[in-house]
């Protein structure tokens, strides 16, 4: 899906847990997520802690969108 969106000329960042799959399917800007059932959260933390995680991942995603790359890149 990522590839088709990028092909259409829209900037895209892929947030996902299983990074190798994302690499295989051909995403260019990849941000690792937390876990499969909660990519952008962590139920063991409180609401604010979880939000902090989301902010971090989304900030990273915006950074990825704003970074020039030449090939597939994982933004750790």
């Amino acid at each position, binding site marked *: 899906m990522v590839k088709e969106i990028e092909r*259409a000329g829209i900037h895209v960042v892929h947030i996902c847990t299983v990074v190798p799959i994302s690499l295989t399917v051909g995403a260019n800007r990849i941000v690792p997520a937390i876990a499969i059932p909660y*990519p952008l959260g962590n139920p063991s933390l409180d609401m604010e802690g979880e939000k902090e995680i989301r902010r971090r991942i989304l900030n990273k995603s*915006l950074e990825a969108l704003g970074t020039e790359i030449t090939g597939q890149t994982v933004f750790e």
Partner: protein
Amino acid sequence: MSKFRVVHYINQFFANVGGEEMADYKPELREGIVGPGIAFNAGFKDEAEIVATVICGDSYFNENLETAKKEVLDMISSCKPDMVICGPAFNAGRYGVACGTVAAAVIEKLNIPALTGMFIENPGADMFKTKVHIVSTKNSAAGMRDAVKIMVPLALKLAKGEEIKSSKQEGYLPNGIRVNFFEEKRGAERAVDMLVAKLEGKPFTTEFPMPDFDRVEPAKALKDINNAKIALVTSGGIVPKGNPDHIESSSASKYGKYSIANVTDLVEGEYETAHGGYDPVYSNKDPDRVLPVDVLREFEKEGKIGKLHDYFYSTVGNGTAVKNAKKYASEIAKELLADGVNAVILTST
């Protein structure tokens, strides 16, 4: 001659431990045969025997990859097997990755032959097909009987160290190693047959798949993020409560488009997941864990992004054919372009 000792690796589902709610199940070593092992063991006749089965939850394995791999490997090696069979995983993505990981590690670390099976579109297939023989299976457990028929003789060959013939003859997924063999018909006749099929729009299989060129040039950096219109897309199946479009939990035949124009936070009871491939409890409790509307609204207010697009798009990645996913994505992209969206954040589970 004594029988080959075989260890079988399966997930929580095939071990009858439970479904998604048990996907965090930690590795367990059981003596003897469990679940699909019965069919394999019957196929082995006098030549081999499943001595133990290792069971592990798919989520546990994928989320704790290094630890899980080590635990599973230790259990396998403690049984001193001659051969390891993983799965088959059919089209279950995380199970496929687990089977591929275990089989590859068994070959590399334990120096024991290993074999797995999965559907060609399973992400594990692409990841591991060059490291381990992966028998090509159907996309669901309905293909178990066929899979066993191909996997048993191939497993025995691997255990005996016999020569492995071409992927077409043995039934494993093409692994990049080209092996010569004699076809039934000469090349020119096969060429004419293939052309006739292609002209009639019937399926045909190329004898040499072109190397994977399906890569997209990375887009340039998005310059003006502060003014950019950003849309959310997910393959995690987040939908309004009740799943109004009836998106399937697996092998989705459609995607949904939902307004979040006045929504600042996705809350329990209003949104849920339609995805059948992972434990839904967490995302139902707080759908922002998959589709982070709450934080993006914050960013919007702070001026970090220009605007969050009024609609989000959602489908279920689980077991969905690649070509369908491609189709949905290009339709979605077309709409997004028309709506003036600059960038997409795509989340997957």
